[in-house]
């Protein structure tokens, strides 16, 4: 515990800002969908706020992330602007991807969000390539590959971790273990912790409480500094819990009620908020102002998105190739 990285006050505030934004964005998303103003498949990251908030606190804007359909938390933490994000969720031409990608396929290179995939496991092979590029250029960039616990059982995980270890790539594999893969419990699909698999590649594998800011920050920073120093990849298994069903509308009857209630009771966002106040890093008014600012930004983003135009049908023939090609 001696060489433990600990976030200073400003960093803690930055982490909380991200967490509050993710939580508010999630609540807003569910509200807007319920209102019928916007239709989209929505995979809530509620309960997983700490993980990307700590990771992004250790990254620069130039660093890359690859994430998955359950990825708005990763995107927001990395800095994807709310207006661009919401316009994409709404399928508008002002969205990050002109509305063509949608919630499962957000790309925003300006903030380092390079790929969002809907295919389980596929963030990892591509993350390696971004990391290889950084290694070749020697530009010190680090790439984060986000994925779920279920993804740790698919072939792409294995091939990617092995290649990264052998090539000593500056990449961090972040398994957000929320105990569920769709309707299936993690322990029904694997006999071991995901972190235990690091050893199968000669790579550090660490399991941390992904809902604890201090544990998570230390693990993230250790892995990111290791990657940046050219010492190779790390596998982090960040333990967390999915507060809702797999996708919006999923009745989640398969999730144990008590376990879920306990997780929700231990909600990391108010918990960290209390810590900030208790430790004197921020006062109630300051945090309330921050949260109000977030709500205002969300109001603005949703309004912007819904007031934006849909893409024209001609977009079907654009961006298929660099030039337009006859079908």
């Amino acid at each position, binding site marked *: 515990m001696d060489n433990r990285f600990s976030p200073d006050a400003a960093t803690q505030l930055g982490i909380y800002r991200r967490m509050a934004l993710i939580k508010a964005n999630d609540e807003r998303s569910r509200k807007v969908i319920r209102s019928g103003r916007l239709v989209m498949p929505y995979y809530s990251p509620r309960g997983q706020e700490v993980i990307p908030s700590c990771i992004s606190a250790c990254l620069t804007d130039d660093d890359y992330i690859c994430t998955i359909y359950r990825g708005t938390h990763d995107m927001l933490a990395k800095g994807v602007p709310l207006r661009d994000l919401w316009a994409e969720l709404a399928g508008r031409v002002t969205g990050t991807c002109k509305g063509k990608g949608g919630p499962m396929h957000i790309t925003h290179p300006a903030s380092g969000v390079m790929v969002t995939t809907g295919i389980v496991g596929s963030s990892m092979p591509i993350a390696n390539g971004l990391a290889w590029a950084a290694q070749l250029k020697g530009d010190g960039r680090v790439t984060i590959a986000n994925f779920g616990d279920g993804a740790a059982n698919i072939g792409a995980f294995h091939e990617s971790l092995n290649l990264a270890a052998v090539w000593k790539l500056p990449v961090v594999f972040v398994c957000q273990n929320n105990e569920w893969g*769709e309707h299936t419990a993690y322990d029904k*699909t694997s006999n071991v912790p995901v972190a235990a698999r690091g050893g199968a590649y000669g790579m550090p594998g660490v399991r941390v409480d992904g809902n604890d800011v201090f544990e998570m920050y230390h693990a993230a920073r250790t892995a990111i500094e290791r990657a940046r120093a050219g010492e190779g990849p790390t596998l982090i298994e960040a333990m967390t819990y999915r507060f809702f069903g797999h996708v919006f509308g999923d009745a989640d009857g398969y999730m144990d009620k008590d376990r879920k209630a306990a997780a929700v009771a231990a909600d990391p966002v108010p918990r960290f908020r209390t810590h900030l106040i208790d430790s004197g890093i921020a006062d109630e008014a300051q945090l309330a102002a921050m949260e109000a600012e977030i709500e205002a930004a969300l109001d603005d983003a949703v309004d912007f998105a819904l007031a934006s135009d849909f*893409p024209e049908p001609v977009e079907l023939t654009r961006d298929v190739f660099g030039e337009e090609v006859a079908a």
Partner: protein
Amino acid sequence: MSRGAALAEGKSNILQSVNAALADALAEDEAVLVLGEDIGDAEEGGVVGVTRGLSTRFGEHRVRTTPISEQAIIGAAIGASLAGFKPVAEIMLMNFTTVAMDMIVNHAAKLRFMSGGQTNVPIVIRTMTGTGFGSGGQHCDYLEAWFAHTAGIKVVAPSSPADAYGLMRSAIDDPDPVLFIENLPTYWNQAEAAPSGYRVPIGRAKVLAEGRDVTILAYARMIQEATPALAQLAEAGISAELIDLRTIAPWDRETVLASVAKTRRLLIVHEAVTPFGVGAEIAATVGEALFGQLAAPVKRLGGAFCPVPFSKPLESAFAPRTADIVAAAQTLAAHL
């Protein structure tokens, strides 16, 4: 209408029909197995409930939830089939066949031939797909042409509850691998239910409506788009014949050629992108078989040549719609 009420009236939807076919097959034959992600009742019987009730009724060893490991899923099905079982493996969405192509194409489809007929692979691979729910570029592709281009595997795509039941039973009976494609957005459409034990032969198309002037050949959800076109065309004085292909490989040349020999005009409609799609094979075959007998060039309507877009207006414009079908059929009919 509640499920009970619907069944009492002899109605069912595709989801219920697939479920009933699996249940009946599991009940009749101990060799039948079901496996895939989330399919057990602890997992609510599948992400949309197609397999609901099966693991409770037939046990978690015969109806088995798997890790997210599509190669392992198909491999387990192949291996068990080599030892006498008849596994029905689910690959949740058709785009996820991309992580199991080796098992499907290099192994399931080829083992009978490569073994000189010693072993066969009587498996069914169930998969869902289809645009309409805004799930974007990696969740809705129709990839049936890939498998139809592969010797050793059959491909079916029912559009009605009765066909779904009857083709699933035939697929399970079949001694070879069958890819069974379910359209997600039309799972809940109600229609007449199949009687228990009903079989729809693989390789047989169905004439849904007879007509004189133009043949419309479609399958899967495109049947829903084509059906309303018939009345609109009739109003314009065009008598259209509608055929549901149902089996894509091996497809029913006889029925299709007989129809087109009569109407002399063919419109093929599918949701997959047009270039190098199923329509190409049918158009090429019809063009050759009925050379000089057609009144108009064979016309193909398929998905736009792009990944499936998310944005609603784009997604709606991606696949052929009733209006496109009407317009294309009218153009064909205008050739005298």
